[in-house]
């Protein structure tokens, strides 16, 4: 008996639930295509802003035993340039292309989303959660009212599914998630990185040029599981959830799915294990689902709520 790996996600059809997370390898069409060839079920671009951004100065990343700290600073060529990459990616990809966009105001998000859709994006993801850029990402995404307005504006400007990417750096992620749903979000994505800092004891300085950065990788996995569980507890199957955060192996992915995720984002694992992470993790999930006697990968979504 074989297992179906396909996942339906607000109108998108994914051949498998593993999605390239935003900001990892998603900066060019060529890299998006490479992630697709490596086995991703869908790919997300680096978050794109209106104007080109050179990001923060180096160092922008720091390795820890149990994760990465980064403050790339939303470096990106801006939507004008990036539309070409989106077009090219769309031409070459056989899997859904998700364009991540970041801004400050609802109209800005709406405009970016519309242009991304026009260039070929199959869905747009709203970065409401980058923890280290002033006036963007989390700076807008912690305010439920603004989140609702942003999603509403975007929904008014595109036809494709709209994904709202949430931050764990808030008192109540469910409140923000519900605001996004009220605004019309088709999918919730949780979580972005956790705001953190590393200080070098020799130079007595924060290591990152931006001082603050976002923590990803194994360290945040139990936080991601908690967030996805809380969200699923609140919204159930009404709005699908993409779980992201510290997925290094199939168990981590399955944990997020049992907590309520229908699909799973892969980021830091691509550093640790390289692009083969997609295939290795998928194989493990399939084995698990088979052993547990299910026929579809989607069948395990949210099971931890049933059995608790």
């Amino acid at each position, binding site marked *: 008996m074989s297992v179906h790996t396909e996942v339906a996600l607000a109108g998108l059809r994914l051949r498998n639930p593993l999605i390239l997370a935003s900001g990892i390898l998603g900066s060019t069409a060529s890299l998006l295509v490479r992630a697709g060839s490596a086995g991703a079920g869908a790919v997300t671009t680096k978050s794109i802003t209106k104007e080109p951004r050179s990001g923060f100065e*180096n160092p922008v*990343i720091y390795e820890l035993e149990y994760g990465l700290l980064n403050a790339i600073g939303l470096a990106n060529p801006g939507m004008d340039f990036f539309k070409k990459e989106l077009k090219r990616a769309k031409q070459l990809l056989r899997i859904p292309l998700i364009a991540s966009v970041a801004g400050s105001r609802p109209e800005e998000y709406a405009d970016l989303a519309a242009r991304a859709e026009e260039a070929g994006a199959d869905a747009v993801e709203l970065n409401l959660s980058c923890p280290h850029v002033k006036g963007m990402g989390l700076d807008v995404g912690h305010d439920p009212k603004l989140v609702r307005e942003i999603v509403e504006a975007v929904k008014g400007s595109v036809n494709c599914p709209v994904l709202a990417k949430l931050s764990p750096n808030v008192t109540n992620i469910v409140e923000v998630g519900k605001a996004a749903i009220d605004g019309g979000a088709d999918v919730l994505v949780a979580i972005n990185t956790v705001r953190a800092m590393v200080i070098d004891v020799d130079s007595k300085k924060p290591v990152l040029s931006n001082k603050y950065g976002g923590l990803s990788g194994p360290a945040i996995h139990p936080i991601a599981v908690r967030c996805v569980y809380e969200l699923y507890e609140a919204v159930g199957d009404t709005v699908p959830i993409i779980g992201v955060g510290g997925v290094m192996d199939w168990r981590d992915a399955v944990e997020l799915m049992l907590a309520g995720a229908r699909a799973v984002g892969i980021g830091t694992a691509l550093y640790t294990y390289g692009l083969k992470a997609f295939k290795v993790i998928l194989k493990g999930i399939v084995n698990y689902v088979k052993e547990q006697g299910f026929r579809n990968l989607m069948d395990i979504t949210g099971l931890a709520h049933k059995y608790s």
Partner: protein
Amino acid sequence: MRFCVSSQVVRLAYIKGRVHGLNKPIERVLWCQIKLDEPLKPEPGQFVMLWIPGQGEIPLSISDYSVDEGILELVIAKVGKVTTYIHERLKEGDLVALRGPYGRGFSVVRESTCLIVAGGCGLAPFPFLVRKLLEARSSVDVILGFKTASEVFHVAKFVHLARRTFVATDDGSYGLKGTVVDVIKDVVDIKGYDIVYVCGKEKMMKAVVDLCREHNVRCEASLERYMKCGIGICGACVLDPLGLRVCRDGPVFSSTILALIEDFGQSWRDHCGRKIPIPES
């Protein structure tokens, strides 16, 4: 008791070291030895990210490394903010931090006849490569190209080890007159080599790679791109259309791969990721 970190808490990120020796072979180049706190296992052609707190972090090729002494050698050209700071402020005994070694280096072929082609500071990774090639019982010829006599440096490092060392300057003020490409065409017999290694300005590398392909000689080139993460995740250093990352899939690529890379010798990306033509010099 059962954490990974239980027996010893390891800091994986920066490796610390102290400046052990500093010397300026020519005005715009600093040769720097760093005595590291921890042993490395580098391969020739790999690079490190050197962090100067408060200034920045830059990729630099491993110019040489001695396992016994734990000393890393770097060759640093003065081109901008961080390198200028290094040139002007770094002193012996200073503490520095680096991460790496990163990337894929040169193939160290055994019992072969090798040619190294370097333009200016492009010679940086080669002292280490020459040593490794000799350990692998290969023989090495070296072509070093510079703009003019006052820019010539490090020649002695190669003369002692290489079978033959050719030095050329654009204006002929030192050694042969012409570019390294001229030397390959006019002075050596490129078909006599099993492999050619090249590093320098990208247009020059492109010419050398083309020449090698023409004569069916294996060739490897070390590329430079603007780098942020250095570990293959941010996408800053990507090459189209294959999506190869200079920091992780390179910096050294074979001519077979390079033939498929449109960007090679043509374009790179600015800090924002916009593609721009590689400037002429």
